[in-house]
Each structure stands twice: as structure tokens, then as C-alpha cells.
């Protein structure tokens, strides 16, 4: 017994050292964002000696466009993508998990295949399509694909979940005369809630943090999302105004970290059981 306890102590000690080393950069970032410019690189101590919010004030409008605009754009894109993704993927998942139609296995295999496809393979042709539709520099190229269940990963996640829902429930509803639409809305969707929540959280965080697609499609500062705004800041700031840059990094991290803190239990369990990118 006693040796067992000792082992655990050592495990805790090692884990805490690793944990501190991992978390330290983030703590430093937050601390530095509240330091006066001349103290940011003078000490490892993450706590500011003299606390100031000047970096947040100067950084907020440093690119000429306010971060209010960037954050608003990011939230718009992320929330639209979440709604589109949840709706379209759940519908497709119901078909794969519950309905018996011709070539189902073929389509299912193809769907799994698209999960492995590098997005670069379609980046340029997609861009030319959206360019010809005159959709470049709008949010449409970022959202519309998700209306059509573009991210097969979430279909797969929901198919797995629906397969765990007892079929007797559908059948009881069907005996009462419910069609597939009714079964889907009144039986499957309510029970699918945990998977829908995981989808919501992950879609939100991934979309909010996404960079390349937004970089390619959005060119106007008034349309920039938070990552693009921050990137514009980095381009402009090289050499000066580190404080503002770090402060705005914190600002763009806040929404995703907040979502993480609220949902971490579900998220961690979801990843553990489904295996995520």
C-alpha cells in the first residue's frame, strides 16, 4: 500500500512539472498583455509589476479597423457554420444510420474517403468556383459548404451515435403512423443531443480558429475575422507595439477558451470516444 502511494506522488510531481511547462507560455501571454511595453521582455515573471490595460486600448484599433468588427465577423461566421453543420450533418447521418436505400454502402465509403482528403486538393477549384459566383470577399464561401454537410467527420460522429439509439423507439413511432420526417424530428433529434452538442462545440472552435480559408476568401478589412485582424496586426507591428499584439492575441483566444471551459468535460469525453483530428 505504502509503495503505491509513493508512486502516485511521483506521478503527480512529474505531471505537474510537465503541466506547468505547457501552460506557462499561455500564462505568460496573458500576464504580458497587461504589462507596460518596456517590461514585456525584461522578465520571466508572468505577473505584471505595474498593471495596465493600455495595450488593449491601443491594440483594439491599431489596424485601422476595430477588433469589435473582427470579433463580430468571426462570431457571425462561426455561428452560421455551427447551425449549418448541425442541421445538414444530422440529416445525412439519419439516412446513413437508419434508412435502407440503394448504394448506401458505396456512398458511406465515399463519405469516409472524403474525411481523408487533404483540403488543399479542392482549395483552388473551389476558389475559382466562388470567384465566378462573385462570392469572394463575402462569408458565403465559408458557410455555404457547411449547409451541404461538407465536413464528413461530423456525419460519421452522428452515424455512430444514432446506431446506439435503440431501433424500438423509431419503430414504436412508426407504428403510430409517424413518417421518416416525424421520426427524425421527434425521436432521433432529441436523443442525438449529446452528439449535436459535441458538433456545436467543435465546429465553433475550429471555425473560429480557422485561418487559411478565411485568408483566401476575405480581402476587405471590414470583412476580416479575428484571426485575419490579428494577422494584419502582426504584419504591421513587426518591431513595435508588442504589447498591443499580445493583448489582441488574448482577445482572439478568449471566445474559444471560454467555450472550452464551459464544455470541457463533454469535449474531452467526446474526443476520447470518437478520436478526433
Amino acid at each position: 500500500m505504502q509503495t503505491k502511494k509513493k508512486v502516485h506522488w511521483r506521478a503527480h510531481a512529474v505531471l505537474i512539472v510537465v503541466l506547468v511547462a505547457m501552460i506557462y507560455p499561455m500564462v505568460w501571454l496573458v500576464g504580458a498583455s497587461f504589462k507596460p511595453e518596456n517590461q514585456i521582455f525584461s522578465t520571466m515573471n508572468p505577473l505584471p509589476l505595474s498593471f495596465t490595460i493600455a495595450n488593449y486600448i491601443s491594440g483594439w484599433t491599431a489596424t485601422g479597423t476595430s477588433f469589435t468588427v473582427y470579433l463580430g465577423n468571426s462570431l457571425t461566421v462561426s455561428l452560421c457554420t455551427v447551425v449549418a453543420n448541425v442541421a445538414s450533418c444530422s440529416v445525412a447521418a439519419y439516412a446513413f444510420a437508419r434508412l435502407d436505400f440503394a448504394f448506401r454502402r458505396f456512398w458511406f465509403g465515399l463519405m469516409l474517403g472524403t474525411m481523408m482528403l487533404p483540403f488543399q486538393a479542392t482549395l483552388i477549384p473551389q476558389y475559382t468556383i466562388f470567384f465566378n459566383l462573385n462570392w469572394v470577399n463575402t462569408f458565403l464561401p465559408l458557410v455555404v459548404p457547411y449547409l451541404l454537410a461538407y465536413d464528413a467527420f461530423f456525419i460519421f460522429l452522428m452515424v455512430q451515435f444514432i446506431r446506439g439509439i435503440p431501433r424500438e423507439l423509431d419503430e414504436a413511432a412508426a407504428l403510430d403512423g409517424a413518417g421518416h420526417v416525424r421520426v427524425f424530428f421527434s425521436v432521433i433529434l432529441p436523443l442525438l443531443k449529446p452528439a449535436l452538442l459535441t458538433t456545436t462545440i467543435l465546429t465553433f472552435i475550429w471555425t473560429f480558429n480557422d485561418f487559411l480559408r478565411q485568408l483566401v476568401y476575405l480581402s476587405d478589412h471590414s470583412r476580416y475575422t479575428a484571426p485575419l485582424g490579428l494577422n494584419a496586426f502582426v504584419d504591421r507591428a513587426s518591431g513595435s507595439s508588442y504589447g498591443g499584439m499580445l493583448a489582441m492575441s488574448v482577445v482572439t483566444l478568449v471566445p474559444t477558451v471560454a467555450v472550452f471551459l464551459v464544455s470541457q468535460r463533454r469535449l474531452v469525453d467526446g474526443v476520447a470516444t470518437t478520436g478526433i483530428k
Partner: protein
Amino acid sequence: MSDDSGVAVLDPPVSEQAAPPPPRRKRKRHKHNLAGYGFLAPWLIGLFAFTLIPMVYSLYLSLTRFNLLTAPQWIGFENYTRLFSDERYLQSIKVTLLYVVTSVPLKLAAALLVAVALNRGLRALGFYRATFYLPSLLGASVAVSVMWRQIFSRDGLVNQFLGLFGVQGADWIGDPRYAMWTLVLLSGWQFGTPMLIFLAGLKQLPQDLYEAAAIDGAGRFTVFFKITLPLLSPMVFFNLVLETINAFQTFTPAYVISNGLGGPIDSTLLYTLYLYLKGFGSMQMGYASAMAWVLFAVIGLFTAIYFWSARKWVNYAD
């Protein structure tokens, strides 16, 4: 999951085209063709519009000279042959392969070590798991890349830490010998996702083998290499495939750390970054399409090699 024949027997025989099709009957033909394709329609349209047609189109573009504004000009395989005399392209392949073969093992090793350390019924497991997972959730973002760049700058956190031991740190970001390794470390920092998957796998391992090993007096290393690792090999395989595919597609950190240029002297010119520069920087979209297809083929090759080699080292006991 299991065939619920009880209900099927209770089902009254219903005529072929009854409006709400009975949920379960004897498997004759496909019962739900109409409803099935109805529910599948959005995904099917998306599949053709955003994946299949673009892929074919991209294959065509890769055989043309195309700058978006004028019509594509057919040039056959010229883009592909040009790739292999393009010094920067060859450099980007070198950099990317180096990145993949170092960052993936580093990340998986860290994930496995921490997962094994966590898998002992420790207190505060939930706290550890969540905290270790956070970096991989934030990892691909611009903000984290900005943070990383500052930490490894000449007077950043890392060099201050080294200074405590009297070591004069290098200019990690500005020196072409080291810039790449900051990207590899950033990837290693994000070991949270594979760690969670390993942890879930470790929980499933049969305990009797460990008891038997303890009775035989096996040491901790023996137990790890002879029992844990072989039993966990399906998880290792799964993570290896996923992380390799992800590593080939890394873009944001390289872009932010090098100011979008892949420098210093192309030492962080990851494949996707070069593709972006060619396609959207100098509008050589035919050339960039060819690059995308080569990347697709390389990822396919890696995956094929993994699956082929899996027979030799992945242990599917059940």
C-alpha cells in the same frame, strides 16, 4: 444494432407503397430509396459541388496555365515537370518531410508517455486531461502562433529561462538552422488529442495480463514494451495515420512565424505555405493545382504504406 426480429414478426404485412413505410420488414429490396435519397440530398449535392467536381476540375487545371482572370491554357504535363526543377519546391518538400517525420513521432511519444502516467487512477484526472488537451484545441490558431513566435524570439521566454543557467540562447525564429524546430516543438506541444485517444485505449486493456506479469516479477519497462505497447498498437496506428495527414497540411504556424514567407531562407517553407504563395500570391493556379495533386498522392502513399505495414506490427487481438 442486433436484428430486432421480435418487432418484425409483429409487423402486419403492408402493401408495397404504403405512405409511411413500415420501419422494419423482411429484407427484400431497399425499402427507403425515396426517403433515403431525400435525407441524403444535401450531402450528395455538397459532395458533387464541393468535392468531386472540384477535384476533377483541379486535375484539369493542373494541366493548364491559369491565373484566374483569363481562360486556362492547356500545357499538358509542363506544370508537373517544372515542379521538379523548381528549387523552392524541392526545398518545400525537404522541409515538409523533415517536419512530418520529426513532429509526428514527437507528438505521439509525448501523448503516450503522459497517457500512461495518467492511467493509474490518479486523483484530479479530469483536471489533467482537460489541461493537457487545451493546447491541441487552440493549437492551429494565429494567436497561439503569435505567442510561440514571441516565446522563441531573441529576448523571449525561452532565452530568459536558458539565461538562468548561464546559457546564451540563439535567435530561434530568425536563424534558419533553428526556425523549423520551433514549429516541430509547437506541434509536440499539442499532444492532447492523441493523448486522449491513448488514454481511452489504455482503459480497455485487460488487467489479467498485468497481474500475470506482476506475479512473474516483470519490471515496469518490460511491462510497457511487452504488454502495453503491443496491446495499444491499433491506437498507435490510428493516431499515426491521423497525425501524419494533419502534419502534411500544417499552414498557420509556418505562415505566422515566417511573416507569410517561409523564411528565414525558406527554412519553414511548408508545402501548404508554398502552395498558397504560388496559388494566391503569384496567381499561378495551374501550378498550384499540380502541387495539390502531388500532395494528395504523397499523403495517399504514406497512408498506403501505413496500412501495408500495419499487418506486421498492429496487433488486432480480437
